[in-house]
């Protein structure tokens, strides 16, 4: 079975790519991913916010209580040099590159211009084959217009593109007034791929302690519906590659995404839940399904169910589809 695909100008053995997750923090896991058949790996993100906070923390804690009492004028040895930038992340990328043969896609997560372009270049220099930009913010300023937000994103993208030679994917949230328009603008600003969609941290309320607990829920297969719709609608309408992420748990999920038009399918929750080796299962089942259904290659099925190519193009656009609603059994008050 020919599972090959092309993403960001790189030929991949299969469309199965582990997406950014804490799993890549260990080189051992990176090797396991390769062994389990990952076609490429998106690294965990270098968080701009984290780098900044680490610097402030270091400065704060080194200064705390200093030069106050004659016996304890300082509390820490002062070093000649601190690695307060992305050194550890970059070294980790370099180590991963040395450890595996598959492509490594670096991931950069932030919202401001500070440090971004520099870090992108450093990730490239560390050996990453491509870069995924994770523009991650919840717009909460009531004075800020949609246009402001979008052009801010695009400026970031353009400035990164100007700095690096490796392909750049942009991981986005679905929360745009007109996502299709933004996708096209991102495409025109040089995005080599769009990764759909980002899932934000989802704060929860702890009832016992009355505290907000920031955490991420692992995705369920339901989560794939939204990206699948948008991939289907964008397929063939923009030049950038499309990467599907969120809710891909089974081979059939991946197949659906590919049929919608994804060039690659990215997996995270399922690997966290079932283990890295589960990649093998998905790949095997994907092959089996395709064999069973007499498909020859991924290339063949890619986009086959996109809006452009599917039997009922309007289905992707209907906001309220009467049949879908009616299909719910009516329930009385509980």
């Amino acid at each position: 079975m020919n599972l090959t695909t092309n993403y960001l100008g790189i030929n991949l053995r299969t469309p199965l790519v582990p997406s950014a997750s804490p799993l890549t923090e260990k080189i051992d896991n990176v090797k396991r991913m390769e062994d389990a058949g990952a076609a490429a790996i998106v690294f965990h993100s270098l968080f701009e916010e984290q780098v900044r906070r680490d610097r402030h923390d270091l400065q704060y804690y080194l200064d705390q209580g200093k030069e106050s009492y004659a016996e304890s004028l300082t509390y820490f040895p002062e070093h000649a040099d601190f690695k307060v930038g992305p050194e550890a992340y970059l070294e980790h990328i370099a180590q991963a590159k040395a450890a595996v043969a598959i492509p490594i896609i670096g991931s950069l997560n932030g919202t401001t211009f500070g440090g971004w372009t520099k870090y992108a270049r450093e990730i490239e220099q560390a050996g990453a084959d491509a870069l995924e930009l994770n523009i991650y913010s919840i717009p909460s300023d009531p004075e800020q217009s949609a246009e402001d937000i979008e052009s801010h994103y695009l400026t970031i993208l353009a400035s990164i593109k100007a700095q690096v030679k490796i392909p750049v994917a942009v991981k986005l949230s679905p929360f745009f007034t007109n996502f299709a328009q933004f996708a096209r603008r991102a495409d025109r600003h040089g995005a080599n791929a769009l990764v759909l969609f980002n899932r934000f941290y989802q704060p929860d309320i702890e009832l016992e302690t009355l505290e907000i607990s920031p955490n991420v829920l692992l995705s369920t297969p339901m989560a794939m519906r939204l990206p699948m719709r948008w991939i289907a609608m964008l397929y063939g309408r923009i030049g950038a590659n499309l990467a599907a992420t969120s809710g891909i748990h089974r081979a059939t999920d991946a197949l659906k995404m590919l049929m919608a038009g994804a060039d690659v399918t990215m997996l995270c929750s399922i690997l966290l839940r079932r283990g890295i080796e589960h990649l093998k299962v998905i790949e095997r089942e994907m092959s089996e399904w395709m064999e069973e259904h007499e498909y020859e290659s991924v290339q063949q099925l890619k986009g086959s169910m996109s809006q452009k190519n599917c039997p009922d193009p309007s289905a992707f656009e209907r906001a309220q589809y009467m049949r879908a609603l009616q299909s719910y059994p009516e329930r009385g008050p509980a």
Partner: protein
Amino acid sequence: MRNTCTAKNNPWVPRAPDAVDHLVVTMPANYQTLDANEAVARIAYALSEVIAIYPITPASPMGEWSDGWSANKAKNLWGTVPAVIEMQSEGGAAGAIHGALQTGALSCTYTASQGLLLMIPNMYKIAGELTPTVFHVAARSLAAQALSIFGDHSDVMAARATGWAMLCSASVQEAQDMALIAHSATLEARIPFLHFFDGFRTSHEISKIDIVSEDVLRAMIDEDRVIEHRARALSPDHPVIRGTAQNPDVYFQARETVNPFYLRCPEIVQSAMDNFAALTGRQYKLFEYHGAPEAERVIVMMGSGCEAAHETIDWLNARGEKVGLLKVRLYRPFATRLFLEALPASTRAIAVLDRTKEPGASGEPLYLDCVSALFEQGRRELRAVGGRYGLSSKEFTPAMVKAIYDNLTLPAPKNHFTIGIEDDVSHTSLPFDSNFSIEPDDVMRAQFFGLGADGTVGANKESIKIIGENTENFAQGYFVYDSKKAGAITISHLRFGPRPIRSTYLITQANFIGCHQPLFLESYSVLNDLVPGGTFLLNSPYAYDRVWEHLPENVQHRLIETHAKFFVINAHKVAQESGMGNRINTVMQTCFFAISGVLPPEEAIAAIKDSIRKTYAKKGEEIVRKNLAAVDQTLAHLYEVQIPDAVTARISHNGHHFKGAPDFVRDVLGEITAGRGSSLPVSALPNDGTFPTGTTKYEKRNLAAEVPVWDPKVCIQCGKCVFVCPHSVIRSKVYEEALLANAPASFQSYGARLPEWKGSKYTLQVAVEDCTGCGICVDVCPARNKSEARLKAINMRPQAPLRESESANWDFFLSIPDYDRKRLTNGSVREMQVNQPLFEFSGACAGCGETPYIKLLTQLFGDRLLIANATGCSSIYGGNLPTTPYTKDAQGRGPAWANSLFEDNAEFGLGFRVSLDKQQQFAGELLHRLSPQVGRMLATEILNARQRDEADIFEQRERVAELKRKLEALPDPYARRLLALADTLVRKSVWIVGGDGWGYDIGYGGLDHVLASGRNVKVLLLDTEVYSNTGGQCSKSTPRGAVAKFASGGKRAPKKDLGLMAMSYGTIYVASVAMGAKDEHTLKAFLEAEAYDGPALIIAYSHCIAHGINMTTAMQNQKAAVNSAQWLLYRYNPERARHGENPLQLDSPAPRIAVADYFKLENRFMMLNKTDPRSAKELLGRAQTDVNSRRAFYDFLATRNLIPAPHDELNDKLSRD
């Protein structure tokens, strides 16, 4: 303090222009601005192979530099990285050096004060074996009537009989130079050298000095002598034996064999000095005369005072006087002939000054040496007087120098005088004119008043470097700190001038005064030292056109009187807007350069910016950017204020009130608090070091911008806030409603919720004037407001609007009687927290992790408590003048507290116990004898009293009171003896308190012995896992992977399991607690330890500012430490074994988080990721393994089936005796 040394940048190599800290270098490249500790450590490091270190103020930085350089792989002169090893005490360091020397390494160490005393036994040996080495000593006072960390020569004088050569430096430049001369001469002379310089005044003074080059080092060290040293080493390849025992037949003769070496030594030192002069142009003499060639009056002295005397002599001689100074550099061996030759022939009288005191001696050491020299050399016509000066860094000024010369003009000059104090007891002191000043016009003198940790000192250190390295000026910086760790004032004294600065005393004539905290204007005489026409810079929240009306009356008056130039800036605003938060240092530094004129403004700004880039680049570009933004913003917000003609103030100078304090407290401690302690006469002070307790309450420091405010409706009255409050400022009381009759209107109360207290009222009251605002109470409060969950039962609110009403409420709260302790029975946190703490308002850091344990101790057992306290943080916040936190209850009872030393605390406390037990036993014997007279019933009751709980003790006190009444009426001599001992019949609780530096390291041997003794002593070990008080050096308690000073590459060895070691005896109650993880467990452990009839050890996890944590949420760090099993909670109670139960109860939950998750919360662990990620990863892995295996081992110990132990009669006997 910056460490600019890296592997590429050896400490002794002058920094090349591109590595110099600041851009423009107009002076020769070998000028640098640094303090003596750094200057000396550079030399010692370059010339050593083995360096043993142990922290002690003020010498610790020398060890810290050495450790840092070694961790950075900086090489010594011979291209190898010296081995730097931290020892468990100075005694250990001296022993290790002795061994290293015996086996042929070039070795040295650094120390001071008590540390030097601990080295003395080895020093005799090292000298007796004619072994070359140098010990560098930042000379410091010895603990006598009190400890002092400040400078004098008491320590080195105590070592003068050891047979070491003693070489003294008077300035930072000399400290560097003499360090080299000492290392050079010792190899030649084979006599070990003690090189000393004044603690703080020299060790911590920042000065612009000429750095010696590598070439000079090479030229000063004779390689042949190094080879000879190696050849003498012990080796099985050419074995010899040393350290034999000798008998009366030969010991004496053998002791005399060394004389030729001592006779030759002065010449060797002079030759090294001459060699040094040829290399550097700086000529030193063993006895160096300075002054008029035909002087009749000469001062003889050594140390930093020489510098003040030197400049005074120049001033006096320029005005026609003929006086001189003989600086003693080589004190031992004392070269009698050279001493006399160095004195001008015209000399008729000398005053020999000693910076030490030998009570009962016929004179202080240097004086006696000089007198004997005069006598021996037949110069009896020369009049010699001796005097003491400068003990514990007491100021030594030109005015005093002048007074000493004036004394020598008298026909019968005062001998054995003191100078610098008013001795109205023995009348030893010479009067001096405190207004006499010789400060030259061309020296810029600036004072800066800052708040501890606000960056003022750091910015000033940078300013000195900027000026020192960008201009022709010489520069000097000296910094004065407060006696409290939290909210303390710092005063920086900076001088800049065209000549090397010899003014080794504080500035009293300032051209420039910067006040970085506006509140100081109300409580300190900030403008006292401003010269007419001087400049005053104030950071104020008020605009330039409104600031005047907000100045206190005395400040307005002083500004008008001095025709000052007055500048104001809202530095906090500028800092906030530039993203600097509360760090106003860069803003104020920029203002100083902008208005002082010490550099052209543009050059100054460029230099500041360059300095910022150099200083902060390694910490990230944001930090640099924010600081640069602050510089740019500053000038736009700096205003000159036109001073009106008249005082219009509505605010008066606050001073320190000490409202309601007893006379002694107000007149003595109050004066010290107000910064006028130096003016107190001798008679004001106790002659035996005894002070009243309970004095912090008078200080009312008003440190907190925000204080906790109680919301009674939300409060569940759990007592957790009271439990954790490090400063005892949150208190709870339960009382009858009727007592509220006279309560102030804003006084809050609520129905008591505990069933036992039903019907009573409950109040949680905050002492807002004593609060440090740490916020720990709010963090631990578990109760949230149901409608507005961001609020809790206590919430931080601005202090100022509450000050008046809440102080009235506090006073009222104190007037409510305490709850009857006899009625507290259930041993829960919420109940126990109504007990009055007898430890309050200490000067510990805001949010301190140790003090809540001490407070708990006093709440539980304070009225019968004796504390033996090891030197360390707990002895500083516990017993540093002016005011002390241990206090008394309504009956006048409270903890009796004493500190002996660092190393002997367990033994000291054991002494308490043995003594009390003996007296109690004797009292019992007397009572038995007197029982017919006092009543058999009473005697029997007293002798058989159980005294287990509060009620028992209360009853015993009643009985003893009755006994005393009866005894007073008895004429019997036995009755008189018993009366003096009767109180010992009431059980006393002896607690030995100290930190991990004491318990794990320096005092471990004693602690082990005391615990093993079986005696009824309790040990509270406040485990911060680091030497907190001396500034964060590694101890054996430091966990693997933590970065600490002396372990700047991360601690590689695991933490010592002290509890396990103690448990192995099987007879010691051992508990490991962390109140932030489980407060009830902590409380239970304290109660059980006290109840256990034998020795007990509580190891209490104490978070610390040296962990690099958020102090407000520090209790969460404790919780994380426990949840990761990095810290285990357990109790080992031998009583249980007697009942066939497993004595060990593991009270920790199963690990819930990984060690890595705990490490992430603390900079001490995270820092290694920033400096050496590879080691960080490796050590984290090993730390997790440590935790796993330790937890498994404790699980095994706590669950194994025990064969019931046979009744341990011997131990029973021991604990009874």
